[in-house]
């Protein structure tokens, strides 16, 4: 027999029960919160694996104009310069994700949301954008405009 008095034994029992209760409570709360938290996060949708898109005939794309099209899930802006050359860039501003627009008069790319400005090569030249716009490759094959991802090599 140990030297513990009856009250001491009671106290030990109580603190033991308290620990069990608290652990149980925490476990219970966690088992409610965890599935709810997981539920709130949308499932990852598979990346639409697009390698290139066909924009139709060169002749049908006027000079000094632009078009925003979907490349996979992301919008990209395709510009035909005055010289007739093509340029394709991501269409969402690197600042806060607004869709940019092509300014014909100055051959620049402008974002109306916070007045961000890029040159025709997609380089950020004034305003808040922190990075240049990502580049896409434009090829002309049999009079057709084909936009594809840049080779990273």
């Amino acid at each position, binding site marked *: 027999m140990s030297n513990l008095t009856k009250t001491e034994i009671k106290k030990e029992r109580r603190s033991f029960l308290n620990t069990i209760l608290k652990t149980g409570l925490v476990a219970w709360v966690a088992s409610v919160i965890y599935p709810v938290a997981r539920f709130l996060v*949308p499932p990852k949708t598979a990346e639409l694996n697009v390698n290139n898109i066909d924009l139709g005939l060169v002749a049908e794309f006027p000079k000094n104009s632009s078009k925003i099209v979907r490349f996979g899930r992301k919008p990209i802006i395709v510009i035909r310069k005055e010289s007739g050359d093509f340029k394709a860039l991501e269409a969402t501003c690197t600042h806060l994700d*607004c869709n940019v627009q092509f300014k014909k008069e100055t051959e620049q790319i402008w974002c109306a949301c916070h007045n961000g400005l890029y040159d025709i090569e997609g380089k950020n030249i004034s305003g808040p954008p922190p990075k240049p716009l990502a580049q896409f490759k434009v090829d002309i094959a049999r009079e057709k405009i084909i936009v594809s991802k840049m080779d990273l090599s």
Partner: protein
Amino acid sequence: MSIYEWMNERIDLDSVKKFALKKRVPIFYGSVWYYLGGVSLFLFMVQVFTGILLILYYQPGAETAYESVKFIISRVEFGWLIREVHSWSANLFILFAFFHMFTVFFAKAYRKPREMTWVTGMILLMLSLGFGFSGYLLPWNELAYFATKVGSDIAGAVPVIGDFALRLLRAGDEVSGATLTRFYGIHTALLPGMFTVVLGIHLILVQVQGMSVPPEIEKIPEEKRKSIPFFPDFALQDAMAWLIVLNLIALLAVFFPWDLGPKADPLASAPAGIKPEWYFMFMFQTLKYIPAHVLFIEGELFGIMLFSIGGLIWFLVPFLDKKANDGIRTPFWTWFGILLIIYMIVLTAWGYLT
């Protein structure tokens, strides 16, 4: 036996009545400020009422939201009125909540023992801004689409939890129909529930602690201060103020309707002259003029830090301005408030004029 007596036998209505009749409202140069909280409460009730009506016709979803709002304003009888009242009342609600907050600030009503009233009020303000942000997307028009893109992208720039927060808000990587459904749920279920609970606490605190008076008035001996009973004197004045505001909303709704604009198009450029709601304008304008990089921090992140720190200080004012507890006005806090107002007004005006 009257219904009152019947109930009184069971739940002691007499004590409630006694409490209500005992309630008095101090009369001094700033008594008019006491209307501001009440008017905000009234506008919130208008929002709940018109919001429930709009739910009866509104259909969330990228293919239906814009069309159903168009249906409401063009086909449903008085649909235009209900929507206009909802939009105008929302804007006035934010405006009056700001007035209410600043008068409370300058009257130092947040000082002991009313710290919790201030903190619950700040939570209500944040929930209100959440209401504004989530409700703005629901018509699924062009402005709403880009405002939501920008707003959620800002959340995405927060370090560590940014990506998670962005996907949580957008219900995916992009602003889409899924975002709309989520915002609808937030706007019509989550926020109203939370708001009602916090508002209840806010109002109970006001009842239990009574009206606050500025430190200068508090120094006057109690028997020399003027006051009027809440029932019926002040309650009637309150009712009058509510009626005036309701008329104002009706006038605004009829003569200054909100434009729905074109439908959201993920492949359109953000239109020139795009602007957020006026109460986000000062933040929008700040973001516009923060350069791409401040020292080694990205400008966007710098802006977020600026507003988070400012907001946190404002939230914790009752615990930072300790001298207010002794009825002392410190020039620092007075100037903090004044400069904040000047900053908000100047940047908002600048945003609209340029």
